[in-house]
């Protein structure tokens, strides 16, 4: 079915809403068993892409093979091999957590005994056993999200699509969900995850695709993206905060930026070692006393901002 362990193959996918190009000629492959992070701001086309891959939306052009089946030619074969947890927690509030899972199990046409068994197992894995027999409307946001993701797993899908799974969750719930998602890969499930949070992509994804305005602007591992795309950054900490202005004026040609709160001047290192030495020499000549000076790799946020051109 899949070749070379490629489980999702996307070629020249396009979708427009009127004059807005939600997706423009998007192509990429996803290997079996990885977590792929689709990273981008609102309106980047992430949800449109997920909706096409989960057969909810027809593309205007291009092809997408999911688990070896064309999403347009054979949508029902695709549906029986995927799970989707969309942007909203899609649970029935008038059913209990357990009933929600069993209902989705029935709709995957699982035999009743298996549906019940898997529901029980998922309730345990997602820390919902205590609330299993309570109506879902009494659940907290984090619990709803976990139940939603658990529901999408009851069919034991080969690929799980998670569309912004942690949007709106508090940090603790977010962490719990992250741990659960990481656990999925151990069972061999391929995960395609969209997110606006760089931290989330950095922590979870083996491979990251950064999208902006319907196009792929960069891809690679978090490490690749940071080292290839972002410039190293020099952080200059002065002893006397009055001297911050002196430093910025002095180093004006290097495009410094100031973080007043922590009294740090940061300078992107665009021209390597030579530039670094030049900066230090000039600071020394001016006689400004430094508390610390540090050269570091950019954060994913800085990479992201460079790529999408948003500040």
């Amino acid at each position, binding site marked *: 079915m899949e070749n070379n362990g490629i489980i999702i193959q996307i070629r020249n996918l396009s979708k427009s809403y009127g004059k807005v190009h939600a997706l423009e000629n998007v192509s990429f492959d996803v290997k079996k068993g990885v977590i792929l992070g689709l990273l981008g701001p609102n309106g980047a086309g992430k949800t449109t892409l997920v*909706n096409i891959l*989960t*057969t*909810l939306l027809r593309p205007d052009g291009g092809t997408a093979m999911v688990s070896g089946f064309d999403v347009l030619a054979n949508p*029902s074969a695709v*549906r*029986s091999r*995927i*799970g*989707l*947890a*969309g*942007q*909203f*927690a*899609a*649970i*029935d509030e*008038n*059913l209990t957590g357990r*009933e929600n899972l069993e*209902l*989705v199990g*029935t*709709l*995957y*046409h699982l035999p009743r005994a298996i549906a019940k068994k898997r529901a029980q197992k998922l309730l345990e894995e997602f820390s919902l056993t205590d609330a299993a027999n309570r*109506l879902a409307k009494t659940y907290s946001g984090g619990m709803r999200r976990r139940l939603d993701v658990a*529901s*999408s797993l009851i*069919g034991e899908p080969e690929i799980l699509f998670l569309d912004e799974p942690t949007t709106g969750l508090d940090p603790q719930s977010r962490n719990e969900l992250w741990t659960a998602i990481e656990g999925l890969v151990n069972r061999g499930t391929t995960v395609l995850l969209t997110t606006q949070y760089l931290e989330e992509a950095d922590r979870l994804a083996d491979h990251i695709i950064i999208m902006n305005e319907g196009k792929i602007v960069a891809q690679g591992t978090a490490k690749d993206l940071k080292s290839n795309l972002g410039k190293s950054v020099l952080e200059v900490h002065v002893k006397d905060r009055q001297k911050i202005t002196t430093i910025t004026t002095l180093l004006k040609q290097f495009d410094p930026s100031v973080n007043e709160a922590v009294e740090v001047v940061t300078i992107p290192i665009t021209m390597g070692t030579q530039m670094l030495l030049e900066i230090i020499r000039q600071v020394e000549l001016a006689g400004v006393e430094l508390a610390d000076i540090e050269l570091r790799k950019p954060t994913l946020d800085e990479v992201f901002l460079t790529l999408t051109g948003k500040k």
Partner: protein
Amino acid sequence: MAETNSHIAEQGLRWTISDIVAMTWRGLVRYIRLPQLLVFSTIQPILFLLLFTYVFGGAIQTTQDHYINFLVPGILVQIVIFGSVQTGVGLAEDLSKGLIDRLRSLPMARSAVLMGRTLADLVRNLFVMVLMIAVALIIGFRPSGSIGAIVAAVFLIASFGFAFSWVSAAIGLSVKNVETAQVAGFIWVFPLVFASSIFVPIETMPSWLEAFAKISPITVTVNAVRALMLGTPLGDNLWQSLVWIIGILIDFSMLAVWRYRKI
């Protein structure tokens, strides 16, 4: 090969039925879990029944000695029409909560989402009707039709409500928003309900309105139900009602399915 195909078709049919049963159960559970939904869908018609029997009834001249005998068949039809508005509201709610997206990504029969909802509302309508008939009997409703005819009348009303559920489904899937579905569902129902033979004989209406009320699907259905329950002649009402029901069912189930596919 032919045998394999028929086997697959048979399994497909079994799964479709199992999907519909699961979705119908899910639609009914909400009434068990949200008893206020059921209470409100019965209290309101009971209030109507009492209001028309005791307040307006004395002023309305009908073919019946007692207004309540004229009223009950009509009010039963009114209940299922108002009840059918819930079909669209429920679907709009599922849509806005993202539940429909989840269901559409499952390998289930797509028809089961709409069938489950309309069947659940059909069962609810039957329940409310039985309750209403019980209340009506207590306050003096005396049908003179045979038991068989009364049961047939109840099923005619239920089928009528089922057809209206599909109209409501098409509306709910088009407006996609709970509040709008509520308003849009009632707006067109109200004039239809009052410009019919539910509460008053249409002969008392101005001639232009009478002409409209006469051909209304509600009027012919109410007349058929009244004839069955009270043992009066059916005339053309029964077949005209059945033609309306089948026509509405075909047109609006197609429209609703089309709207569902377009989501």
